[in-house]
Each structure stands twice: as C-alpha cells, then as structure tokens.
C-alpha cells in the first residue's frame, strides 16, 4: 500500500474509532460515573468496552495487531479523552502500547501506565528509581518507563506488583501514586526507540496531556456557550452581554491555540526525530498549559457561583485542566527547558530554528 493510501485508510479508521468512542463516552461517562471513579471505583466494564473496540492499541503498529494510527491521525481521538474524561487509563495505555510496539516488546492487553521520569538500570538488568506521580498506577498491570544504563537508554516494562506504591491525592481525585523501584527485574527490556530524546517518555506524555488539555478546553468552551445562551439575567441571556461575549471569544482563542499546538506536536512525534519530538512536546505543553490556566478562570467567571458547586459538571473538567497542565512537565518547566536551548543556540539561530522542519 502506498503511503498516501495508508494515510487515507488511517484517517478513516481514526474517524470510525473516534465516533464509536464518542458515542460510548456520551452514554457511559456521566457525572455519576466520574463521581464514582473519584471515590475509587475502577470502571472495569467501561475499560472492557473500550478495549473491545480496539482503542487501547490504536497507536500500536498493525504488525502487533494495533490500528497503526499516527499521532496526527489520533488527534481527535486523544482530544475526546480530554473532552469526556473517561476515568480509565486509555491515553496512557495507547502511548505505552505504541512505545512497546516500537521497541518490539509484546503488550499485555491490560491497563498500562507510563512513567515520565528517567529510571536507572544496572548491569544485570535490574531497574531502580522513583517517579513522584504516576497516574493510574494503582490500577495498571504494568508500567512502561525509560531506564538509563551503561549501555544507553532502555525501554522497560515493569510489573506494578514489583514496585512500591504510595498513594497520592491529586486535584483530579483519580488513582495516582508515588512509585519506587528497587532492583526490580523488568518483565521485558529493549533499547529505547530513537524517537525518544534525553527527556525520555516525558515528551510523548506531554503531547498526550496537551491533547487532553485541548479537548478539555473545547468541552469547557461548549459548556460555557450553552450556559451563556440559556442563563438569563437583567431580562436577557447573559451571552448577549458584550462582556461575556468577549471572554468567551478569548476562551475560543485559547482553545484553538491549544488544539493547533497539540496537532503540531503530534506531527513532530510522527516525524520520528527525537529533537523535533521534544521541541513539539515543549511547544504544545507550554501553549496548552497557558491556555488551560486562563481558560479555566474564564469558564468559572462565566458560570458564576453555580459552576463552583459539587453537583455541577464544570469542576470535573476544570480540575482535570489544573491536573493535566502540571503533569508531564508544567508550562513553566517546559518553557524553561525550551528557553535554555534557544539561549544556548543564540539569537541568530532563532528564526531558522522556527522555520526548519527538523
């Protein structure tokens, strides 16, 4: 199959998969389902339905039974994880399965999670190190991580049962833990795929979070527009007030910027070049993080007091925006990382770096 035909087929699969998932999420990911998940109930039935559709292996190559979608093709799908916020580690498992397939390691067909921090591997292949915050670790069968060793960076698959987990409370109230590995024998190990640079899995994890932030912002924008067109004060719907219109126009701008930046990062990941992938991840996480920061504030201002109540759906989305913007490197962290590189290169290199494709 030519690459153009493959790309058309991929786009079609992505659309089909996206439609199926969106329907499933609208039906199953209710406020009640989100509340139950935040009280610690893992929705195994939802997970099974998602994996039956084949979503967990959407990014994994067709050679290992995945859908072989590119990150760019999967953009809509990843953003729908942000918009509907299904309380399962689907994005993490998609990323993990993609990585494992690239490294030639068999996936487990179970929920997986991804460590953004670098671990160490010793001469006998035992893995040690810590990750301060690993989302979904308590419900993941295994952890995909990058471990630095004498022979370079290795991709490792670790059984969660072999790690020490300390539960962490987070703003999104979803299962997460500090994870420590002390000389753990990995289930599998292989040289880290070349798309990963010095930041390891942090870059693709940042792209995943940026996509989720973009989707979450789009959902919050839709909720705000709907509310502004129905809530009446002073004899008219509040959306008729220019003060509200301009705040929502700004929210639309912030949402569009996050979407575009996340889409850019996805294409950089697809290029397979580690430098491009890291740069794209930085751009996307900075832009999406800044958008989420201002965007969540606008949404709460537009919704007024009702939007701050527990019974309202809004905080399920805004708390996730606040969580995701700080996971896999905050906008400040990535901005500093990127800024140091630009400063090291010097002013004369700035513009050529912006327009170059690698």
């Amino acid at each position, binding site marked *: 199959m030519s690459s153009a035909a493959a790309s058309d087929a991929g786009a079609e699969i992505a659309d089909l998969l996206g439609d199926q998932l*969106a329907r499933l999420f609208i039906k199953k990911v209710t406020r009640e389902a989100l509340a139950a998940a935040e009280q610690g109930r893992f929705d195994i039935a939802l997970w099974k339905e998602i994996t039956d559709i084949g979503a967990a292996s959407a990014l994994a190559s067709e050679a290992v039974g995945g859908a072989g979608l590119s990150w760019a093709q999967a953009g809509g799908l990843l953003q729908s994880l942000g918009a509907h916020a299904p309380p399962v580690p689907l994005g993490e498992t998609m990323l993990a399965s993609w990585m494992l397939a690239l490294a030639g390691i068999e996936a487990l067909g179970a929920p997986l999670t991804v460590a953004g921090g670098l671990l160490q591997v010793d001469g006998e292949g035992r893995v040690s190190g810590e990750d301060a915050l690993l989302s979904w670790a308590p419900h993941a069968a295994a952890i995909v991580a990058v471990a630095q060793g004498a022979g370079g960076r290795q991709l490792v698959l670790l059984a969660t049962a072999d790690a020490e987990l300390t539960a962490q409370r987070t703003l999104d109230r979803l299962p997460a833990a500090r994870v420590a590995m002390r000389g753990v024998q990995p289930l599998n190990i292989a040289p880290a795929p070349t798309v990963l640079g010095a930041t390891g899995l942090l870059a693709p994890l940042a792209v995943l979070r940026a996509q989720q932030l973009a989707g979450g912002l789009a959902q919050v924008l839709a909720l705000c527009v709907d509310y502004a067109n129905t809530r009446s004060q002073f004899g008219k719907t509040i959306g008729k007030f220019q003060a509200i219109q301009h705040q929502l126009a700004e929210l*639309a701008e912030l949402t*569009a910027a996050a979407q575009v930046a996340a889409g850019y990062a996805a294409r950089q990941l697809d290029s397979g070049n580690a430098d491009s992938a890291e740069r794209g991840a930085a751009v996307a996480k900075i832009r999406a993080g800044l958008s989420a920061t201002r965007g969540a504030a606008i949404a709460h201002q537009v919704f007024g007091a009702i939007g701050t109540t527990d019974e309202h759906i809004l905080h399920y989305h805004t708390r996730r925006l606040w969580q995701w913007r700080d996971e896999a490197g905050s906008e400040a962290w990535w901005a500093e990382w990127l*800024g140091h590189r630009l400063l090291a290169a010097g002013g004369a290199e700035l513009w050529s770096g912006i327009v170059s494709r690698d």
Partner: protein
Amino acid sequence: MSAAFHYPPFEIPPELDGLRREVRAFLSEASQQWSGWDIGHSWMGFDRAFSRAVGQRGWIGMTWPRAYGGHGRSALERYVVVEEMLAAGAPVGAHWVGDRQSGPLLLRIGSESQKQRFLPKIAAGEAAFCIGLSEPGSGSDLASLRSRATRVDGGWKLNGRKIWTTYAEHCDFMIGLFRSQGTAEVERHKGLSQFLIDLRSSGLEIRPIVDLTGEAHFNEIVFDDVFVSDALLVGRENEGWAQANAELAFERSGPDRYMSSFPLLPLAIDAVCEAGTIDRLSARRIGEALADIVTLREMSLSILGQLAAGHTPAQEAALTKDLGTTFEQRLPELVREITDNAPVISAGDKLSEMQAYLMQSVPSYSLRGGTREIMRGIIARGLGLR
C-alpha cells in the same frame, strides 16, 4: 463535537528552502544600513528603492499571472518571501498594501484595463497603494461612512474625508470606499462602491497626522469634488462592502499579524547571553514566546491553505489576528522583564532603538485591520452568541 473553527495543518515543503535562502541572502546585504528604530517599523517601513529592488527579484505579485507582471508562483512561495521579510524587519511598506490587498482585489474583480494598467506597476515596486476606509466619524462602525460618490458626466465626483490612511502622502493610488447610493442611516453597508483614486488628483488634499512616535504614518485626506472616471470604479457599483470584506481574511491572517515585533526577540536572546548567567525567568519567557510563535505560524499557514483551497476562513482569521496582535504587543514587555536596559535610546544599540520604537508602536497593532473588540465580536458570532 462541531467546532466553530478549524485549522487543518498546512506545511511548507522542503522544495522552497532554496527560495528562502535566496531571500535571506538578499536581506542580509540590504539590512546593513537599517537601524533598530528602522527595523521596528517592520511592514510600516516605507522605502521605494527597497521595494523596487524586491520587485526586480520577482517577489511582488508573485502569485499573479505573468500577463499582468506577476510571476505565476504559488501562495506558499509568496508566504516564504513574506515571512523572511518580516523576520528581518524589512521596510516593505511601499509595496505591502498593493501586494497583499489592492493587487489581489484588482486581479479578482478589476476590469481588464485596470489590471493591465496597475498590476505590472505594483509588481515592479513602482506603484504604492493605500486603502481608504475609515472616516473621522466612521471607525469600527465602518458601515456608517458618509464620504460620497456622485454620478457626473463620464464618471464620479468624490466628496468627504478619509482618515488613518497609511502613508497616503507617499503613495500613488488609493482604493477608497464611498457611498454611491442612499444614506449612512438607512442603507448602511448597502450602496457603497470602491474607486481607484490617483492621489495627485486635483481637489484632493493630504494632511499628515503625526502620531505618538513623533513620525507621520497616517493621513487625513479631504476630497473636494475629486473626479474619477467610470473606468476607475472597482468591481460593481454599490457592491463595495462585500468586495472590501472579502479582502479581510487575507489581511487578518498573514504573518504580519504576529511578526511585527519579532526582530526584538533574537536581540533579547543575545542580550541575556551577554549578561552572563542565564536566569530561569529569561529562559521561561523566551520558551513561552517560541511556543506562541510556532502556534501562530501554524494557524497562519492553515488559513493560507484554506484560502488557497477557495474557502473563506473569516472566523479563523479573526481569531488568529487577535491572538497574533496580543503576542506582538507582549514582546516589548517581555524584553523589559528579561533585560535590565535603561529607558534610553542609545544610538547604534539596535535593541534599545527597536524597543523604544515598538513600545510606542504596539498599541496600534490591535487597532489596525479591525480592533480587538471587532475581532472578538466576530468570534462571538461564530460561537453562536450573537
């Protein structure tokens, strides 16, 4: 979920790297004489000799047919040239409006004789154009304009006033919007027509307006029975509003809507490096700026792709312009945050000169081409709020 805006990716292919290198080589030579103050003017820098040199290289009217002095090149090739010019802060003002707006308008709806007469001159960098829209009583509320075109034997008589016309005293021609039918109160945006006006016509007085930078970039123009022949009506009588609006997606989404302050950034980077240790705040601010530039460039390219495919992405253009001008306005403040420069203009110090000019110039960036408030109104309508 159906969104109110779409930004399908559109990329510049590697085949255009050669053209990019050519433009850079030309600019590195031409830029030797430019001060920081000059570079700060960006596309408001007016230099006829420079525009002629650009025209000689075939970089004006690039996408127009060769029959009209154009070069039959792609919109992407033009984009590469334009963004290289802006990155260098080149004084493109003498051909900017003709290349971006007036030429494309004439190509689309102008008469055959108008195309033959004006397009080759624009492409050669010989004819400078300005746009006559705003009036003293009609700023953002453009449909209220009152300057009038009255039918006379063989053509029209123009009366009234236009304001904020960029560099009218240096330009050769204006495309102006005049009321040819009805009144501002009743007909509003109906009954407006566009005319090609020779700025040396009798009855026409051009008064420079000195702005807060101490320079005159704008003018007020008084029309007192200025005659234009029938042959200089642009497009259709009374259809001027729709014709003028169709240009706006081009005007609002180009790289000129986010790059006007760009040349500050490389200088700021070097200033931070020269100061010695690189602090965290400087690194963060520069990293944030890059994320914005890359995102805005992606948005601008996407709109270019949509325009090239025959769409009119008015929502996306308004949204991108507001984000882009906000970014342009941010850059001089960013420089203040990360350098400890004194508030003096040191001759020969490019950063201080450019910073001084831009600090005074950026307030107009969210006014020109449609104010921030107008952009947000367009976006709100697209969201279904109006």
